[in-house]
């Protein structure tokens, strides 16, 4: 925890209300997100019990599994869920847009967005995707046509959640905790009701009071996938039993009544979370978006387009495990994305940049001298290399030779020439390169002027090339040699522990 976060949390405790810790919103919030609140049965990982799902606050659909231990009912639930999710995804498979990159391409003009209450919800989505994407639609234990397809999409959503800058799958507690500091621990922030109590207390209550109230599982049932154990024992178990008894005695009207009673109990657990989810969406929407949010959403659109094409072209489902090469390649991609995301957030948001200023990775100051027309004639060609002196009160960790980037001029490199004390401040002499046009005089505004307030950081959001990895068939002996090519089989759906 950084010193600034600690301060914000202390302030939250003192003031009894969550403190904003970002000046802008760093996640994309779709105009029509799909909110998905799953519940799982205690004691069996990945056994769905119920879900509330929909893309509008007034359009909640409740799905229930009257007997979660019954595999057939489990896949019937998956089929119902598939109908809803695949319909929602299909809405985004129409409109396309042209991307004017070096290689122009077409991608979908928007992408779906899945909102889950918390990271455990994402983990449940991943498990559900894994248990459905390898199922067969014919032969023994066949499942409905759309179930394996649902599995592939759920896996796609869960895998996107691992990519730090992606907003395609958002655990809402994480998105809220990114923007507000509460007076409780990060572990407690995983409770959606309590977190929203701090951020958005009902009238007449402080954040701390609202959070304390929300800790009562009767007033504010857990946001899933795990249910409240007291609810399990006192409400759920008798109703599950009633459904079972009714079925054993022939079902009919009694069976339907038992099922309705169960659905009603489950709805009572889900509905409060459903309301909180849409309240969180409103709160997030009210924040002004950061400058890089739309370009990050573009990357999500690319990922969506790519995956849709994989499915359309009949590609295989995502493998159960990454091979050596794909694991390394994925890690490299994630590290690159993480670094870019951290830099972009700091560049978009002065409050995030303040954390980097505290650690000496960035500084803010005023230009005290500038030589905008300085030309370096020592090389083969005369080149424009203006120099500016920046005086700052911040800690400066950069040493001569470090290359800095300014959020105001991201395409320009500033190499540190010298760092010297100037009174009780620090004077940093910078030599600029790039982003000034092609002539030997800089374009207006491309070199900071004397008196201008500037910010420089030791990190940049510039493009980095992904490293090259060998082809999978060239996997070296140190990593077990080339992997066996994947041949789909009936064993795919089995689990090592089952």
């Amino acid at each position, binding site marked *: 925890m950084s010193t600034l976060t600690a301060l914000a949390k202390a302030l939250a405790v003192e003031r009894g209300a969550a403190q904003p810790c970002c000046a802008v919103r760093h996640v994309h919030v779709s105009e029509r997100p799909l909110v998905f609140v799953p519940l799982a049965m205690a004691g069996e990982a990945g056994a769905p019990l119920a879900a509330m799902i929909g893309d509008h606050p007034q359009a909640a659909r409740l799905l229930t599994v009257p007997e979660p231990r019954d595999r057939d009912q489990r896949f019937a639930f998956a089929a119902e869920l598939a109908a809803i999710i695949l319909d929602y995804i299909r809405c985004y498979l129409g409109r396309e847009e042209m991307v004017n990159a070096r290689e122009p391409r077409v991608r979908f003009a928007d992408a779906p967005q899945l909102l889950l209450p918390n990271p455990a919800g994402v983990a449940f989505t991943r498990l559900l995707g894994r248990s459905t994407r390898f199922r067969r639609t014919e032969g023994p234990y066949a499942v409905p046509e759309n179930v394996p397809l649902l599995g592939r999409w759920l896996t796609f959503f869960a895998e996107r959640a691992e990519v730090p800058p992606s907003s395609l799958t958002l655990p809402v507690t994480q998105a809220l905790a990114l923007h507000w500091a509460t007076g409780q621990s990060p572990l407690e922030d995983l409770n959606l009701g309590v977190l929203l109590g701090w951020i958005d207390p009902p009238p007449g209550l402080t954040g701390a009071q609202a959070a304390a109230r929300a800790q009562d599982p009767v007033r504010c049932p857990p946001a899933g996938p795990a249910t409240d154990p007291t609810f399990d024992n006192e409400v759920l178990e008798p109703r599950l039993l009633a459904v079972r008894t009714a079925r054993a005695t022939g079902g009919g009207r009694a069976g339907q009544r038992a099922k309705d009673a169960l659905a009603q109990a489950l709805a009572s657990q889900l509905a409060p979370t459903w309301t909180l989810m849409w309240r969180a969406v409103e709160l997030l929407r009210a924040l002004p978006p950061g400058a890089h949010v739309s370009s990050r959403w573009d990357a999500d659109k690319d990922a969506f387009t790519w995956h849709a094409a994989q499915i359309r072209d009949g590609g295989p489902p995502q493998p159960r495990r990454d091979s*050596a090469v794909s694991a390394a390649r994925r*890690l490299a991609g994630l590290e690159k994305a*993480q670094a870019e995301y951290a830099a972009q957030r700091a560049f978009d948001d002065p409050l995030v940049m303040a954390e980097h200023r505290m*650690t000496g990775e960035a500084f803010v100051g005023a230009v005290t001298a500038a030589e905008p027309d300085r030309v370096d004639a020592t090389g083969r060609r005369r080149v424009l290399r203006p120099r500016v002196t920046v005086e700052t009160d911040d800690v400066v960790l950069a040493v001569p030779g470090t290359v800095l980037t300014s959020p105001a001029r991201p395409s320009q490199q500033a190499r540190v020439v010298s760092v010297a004390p100037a009174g009780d401040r620090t004077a940093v002499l910078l030599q600029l390169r790039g982003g000034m046009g092609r002539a030997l005089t800089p374009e207006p505004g491309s070199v900071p002027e004397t008196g201008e307030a500037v910010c420089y950081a030791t990190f940049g959001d510039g493009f980095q090339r992904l490293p*090259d990895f*060998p082809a999978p068939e060239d996997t070296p002996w*140190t*990593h077990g040699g080339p992997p066996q090519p994947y041949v789909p089989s009936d064993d795919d759906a089995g689990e090592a522990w089952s």
Partner: protein
Amino acid sequence: MTSAAGLAARATEEIMGDLAAAERGVVVDSPPGAGKSTLVLAAASRLAGAGEPVMVVAQTNEQVDDLTDRLAADRPALRIGRLAAGDYVPSARVARHPNVTVATSAADLAGCPVVTGTAHKWALAGDATWPWAIVDEAYQMRSDLLLRVAGRFGRALFVGDPGQLDPFSVVQTERWTGLTWDPMQSAVSVLLRHNPGIAVRRLPVSWRLPEPAAELVSEAFYPFTGFRSGSRAEQRRMTFSAASFGKNAYDLSLETAAGSGWALHELPARHTVRTDQGAVAACAALTARLLQRGPVVYSERSEAGAPVTADRVAVGTAHRDQAQAIRARLRADGLAAVTVDTANGLQGREFDVVIVLHPLSGRRDATAFHLEAGRLCVLTSRHRHACIVVARAGIPELLDAHPSAEPVHLNVPVKFPDGWEANQSVMARLKQWKVKAP
């Protein structure tokens, strides 16, 4: 009892024998200061002498330059290629050797029997292949980097210190936990899981650590693969040219360290922020006092005694902001020549005296980062003569209150010792050299 030199020579002979017979390669585990670089140089000369071109892989330009310099000085007749990136400026110690050629492309170094470079540069070296590779600091190399390099060599000697810091990633994910090719693991662990037949040898003698340090470090961090010191206790001594005035805690700590090789400079118990100003001030004051007292060290290298200058002293911390705060204080005292760095930055380096700000000092909790055995091992094994640990009181109690709670994953080999155990062991030993500071 066999002499230390005899033990070490026999181990080196065995490794050379394995190397000649190896089908795929050899892994050599080396405790701190056990002559890892010497082994790399010997192996490179031996292989190149036998007419087999060798690629030498190290992790940083600094390490590659060190190896290149030592090899070039050792074997002036051997042609050495230094493969480097376009923006690399040869350091003075590399440029002074006429037998070293610096080039950006492996094709320009075709005639050199030994070519050195960083792992990142080798990953971009095109399609050229070598019969042999020597990978230095292999435990600090991540396996995904090995994946990019391994296609270039047929057989390899991997050398490294398993007790130091593991490679890390900024990405937090358990996606690959348990996979034999987990890209976040070190190169050696992935290599050994896929090639269990590869021989693992150990260097048995630390030439750097004095006897009391070798005992403590070996017991705490290498419990099953112990090593001994190459020097006897009476060979390593530290004395001060200036006497102390009165008895303050700094002088007491310095004298304890001079007498026994260790001191625990204990500040009063307190929960503090990460850059604890009290501990930072104590580290800076100890460093300043040490140099004021004109320390002289006697060892098998300099039996007549050698003065300890500021560049032979280091201060080690867990976090960069702590290092920054100590550096600022030392600079104000005119001691900018003292190295102040984090454990990651001190890895692989050697000093006469090291002052350590204990990673758990002043903390409320013991996280996996602060408990990591490799971090404490690096910090407490950089010195040839003495190490002074600065800490707030209460670390053993903190450890007792925070037992290791990391999840255990299936199919992941257990690593010994775990950080909690190692920290307890170090504190249990250090308490005999405790000096209470006000």
